[in-house]
């Protein structure tokens, strides 16, 4: 057997209050696509960041082609042949594709035509199209990912790490990515493919390593021999995820009616395309779909943070299409935004300030705010939703992710909404946090509220939703009854099977 391209041995990485990696191991052979599997928070990304020079591990060794390394920056790692494509791309939007590719390893004097030609040739060699002269800000997410891969290949990376690469890809692009990866391993390179989706692992990867709780629970499994159920059990552990018992709701009147909605994104492209949906009282309508198919624009438009260019949005027959966010709240809307810290909360301000964002207008005394009432409200919220906090004057950011989300959800629900729009409400939370949030949403539904829930986690939607709508390229492409549909059917629709 040839020498491993990468060996990570006993990697520990601690952050304040969190142990991200607890003695993780990984061995990647040359000429293979190696999956790193694990649930959200299993420590996959941290481990890869330790390999790619973003973090220095606290303990453990990193060996590249048998030689021990200590990377103090991504550039060090790149020089040793390790390239990583992060979930958030590291590209200069105003630069052209070619400029981004050669940045940091360009000849001292740059001949624009020559680098354009060289980059085009490189792209061609790996079988993907890229116009080297186009500025990156004009590209789609999938195209940007290709630029990131080209960056690593330009530096002749022997090992390419891809962090959840398919999250931003259309099904077509995902297939193309697979071909590129094959070409790379055919040249003797290695690819590390981080994922928590079993289906893509089985179609792309040769071997797999499973992480749980920051440690390796199964190393270098041959994927072809592996059983999907077995992999899944390794990922989630023997104690299965707490069951959320779906209780069939009894839908009432239509609460939210979206008709022919069209929303443009910041680049002037259609994000939501002539979309219609209805949510009734007492039901959870789930929206499934690959990330980046217009979900965020849809929820933002309903919440009033994005402008509808066409169509109507009605809450209990009140037209709120172009209404202010305040009028929507008055009409009975509550919103759990996807970007909690950026849109729902003010992380640097005290907890009290955050707790009353929705209700401070009811606490006025002339021009002044009745702070005693605000504090009482906040204390009440913390008790009711069991939020763990230090002092009320501590900044919001001092709360953990689960507590942040509980406070946010509690705050939104305390206004007794008729319709809740929840975007990725459980993402990034630990198992207990997920269950708590899910139960709160179910209780809310049972008390007669309509809920529109967007999630990338199909299993969550299957467990909670009364109806599942599948969104692709800004449109609803299918509606399913979760009790009478298999995962595969919905998955097919998500992939825009047309």
């Amino acid at each position, binding site marked *: 057997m040839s020498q491993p391209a990468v060996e990570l041995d006993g990697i520990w990485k601690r952050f*304040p209050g969190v142990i991200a990696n607890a003695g993780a191991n990984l061995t990647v052979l040359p000429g293979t696509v190696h999956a790193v599997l694990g649930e959200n928070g299993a420590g996959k990304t941290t481990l890869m960041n330790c390999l790619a020079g973003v973090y220095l591990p606290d303990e453990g060794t990193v060996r590249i082609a048998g*030689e021990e*390394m*200590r*990377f*103090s920056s991504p550039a*060090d*790692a790149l*020089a*040793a042949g390790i390239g990583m494509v992060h979930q958030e791309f590291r590209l200069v939007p105003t630069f052209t594709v070619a400029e981004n590719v050669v940045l940091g390893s360009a000849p001292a004097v740059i001949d624009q035509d020559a680098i354009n030609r060289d980059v085009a040739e490189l792209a061609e060699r790996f079988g993907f199209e890229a116009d080297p002269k186009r500025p990156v800000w004009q590209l789609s997410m999938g195209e940007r990912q290709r630029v990131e891969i080209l960056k690593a290949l330009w530096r002749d990376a022997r090992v390419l790490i891809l962090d959840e690469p398919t999250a931003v890809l259309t099904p077509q692009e995902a297939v193309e990515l697979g071909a590129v990866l094959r070409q790379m391993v055919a040249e003797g390179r290695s690819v590390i493919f981080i994922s928590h989706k079993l289906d893509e692992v089985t179609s792309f990867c040769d071997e797999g390593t499973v992480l749980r709780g920051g440690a390796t629970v199964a190393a270098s499994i041959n994927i072809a021999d592996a059983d999907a159920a077995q992999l899944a059990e390794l990922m989630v552990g023997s104690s299965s995820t707490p069951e959320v018992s779906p209780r069939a709701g009894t839908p009432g009147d239509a609460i939210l009616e979206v008709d022919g909605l069209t929303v443009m994104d910041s680049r002037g492209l259609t994000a939501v395309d002539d979309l219609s949906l209805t949510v009734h009282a007492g039901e959870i309508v789930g929206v499934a779909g690959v990330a980046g198919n217009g979900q965020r624009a849809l929820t933002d438009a309903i*919440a009033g*943070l994005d402008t509808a260019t066409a169509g109507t949005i009605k809450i209990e027959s009140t037209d709120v299409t172009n209404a*202010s*966010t*305040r009028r929507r*709240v008055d009409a009975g809307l509550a*919103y759990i*935004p996807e*970007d909690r810290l*950026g*849109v*729902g*909360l*003010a*992380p*640097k*301000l005290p907890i009290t*300030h955050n707790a009353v*964002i*929705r209700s*401070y*207008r009811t606490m*006025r005394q002339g*021009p*002044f*705010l009745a*702070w005693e009432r605000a504090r009482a409200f906040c204390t009440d919220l913390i008790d009711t939703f069991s939020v763990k906090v230090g002092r009320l004057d501590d900044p919001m950011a001092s709360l953990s992710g689960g507590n942040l989300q509980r406070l946010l959800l509690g705050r939104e629900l305390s206004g007794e909404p008729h319709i809740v729009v929840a975007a990725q409400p459980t993402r990034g939370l630990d198992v207990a946090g997920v269950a708590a949030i899910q139960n709160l949403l179910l209780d809310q539904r049972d008390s007669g509220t309509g809920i529109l829930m967007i999630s990338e986690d199909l299993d969550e939607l299957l467990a909670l939703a009364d109806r599942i709508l599948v969104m692709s390229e800004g449109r609803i492409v299918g509606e399913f009854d979760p009790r009478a549909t298999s995962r595969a059917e919905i998955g097919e629709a998500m992939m825009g099977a047309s």
Partner: protein
Amino acid sequence: MRRLVLQRRETPTRGGQPAAFFIGLLFALLIGAILLTIAGDPVLDTYSRMWDRSLGSSESIATTLNRAVPLALAGLAVSIAATMGLWNIGAEGQILFGATAATLVGRIGADWPGPVLIVAMLLGAAIGGALWSLGPGLARAEIGVSEIITTLMLNEVALRLIRYLQNGAWKDPEGFGFPQIEARPDQAELGQIWERAHLGVIIAIVVILAFAWFLNRSVWGYELKIAGSSPNTATYAGISMRRKILGVMLLSGAVAGFAGGIELTGTAARLNENISNGYGFAGIIVAALALMRPSGVALVAVAFGAVQVGGLSIQSLGVSSAVATILQALILFGAIGASVLSSYRIRLVDRKVAA
């Protein structure tokens, strides 16, 4: 290979900012002493003269307080804009235009009784200052034009506007051909309250306390904090960012303009292009040193006022009054260094470069 890295401490040092200010002050005095020595000036004599003439007697304290008034108001103006994350670099121009507007009021009401005229002039000054920040405020609120540059540019325009008036429409007929603007009406002078300290000192304290109280207790102040801390969250909460940006810029301009009015009715006899005297710029540094807190702004303004007043006194020793300007800048740089060092640890870290 080893290298120095800065590591952020997990808990910032408590009471760090006052300490940083005093370290900055010490740093400035130390560097100042070195400069004076190089130039062959007497260090101790210079510093003791500065102390005597700025804080050494009740008379000099009064002079310092008068000087601190425009600095504190300018600093307050800057810190109000900063609650929304905005930089009002235009306090200088707003002071100038505020004083210009007050002069206009003075020309209209030349025969009004003193108290009425003073109130009218101060009001006019505030409105003038607000008008001078209206353009940058609108441009920022409506199309996102950086207020840093627009306010900065308008400083130079305000300066030239006064120069224009001075040579034209408002030229003093009794100035013997010398281009100066007619003096403001005599009755429009703020009374003295203690030694030479004028009523403006009390007014400034009241204004600062009122703002500190209002921003902390009012619904408007709460909305401002949300909007300044997280714009998307504010929009989500139904707070109009456009209106908040415009409101805060107008208010900031009004406070700076008001400072111009106080200068005109307090220490200056007539409008001239030096009436702002760098207070607008110094106010930014004052506000930064006070971490944008109104009460801190008042204290730092007194310290800066003392340095400026002290600086004027050392000319008679044959020492350049530029020392005061240098000291003010060095206090800031010293404090920056001190506050960074207090929130970071410097550590030597091993570094192996990959082969």
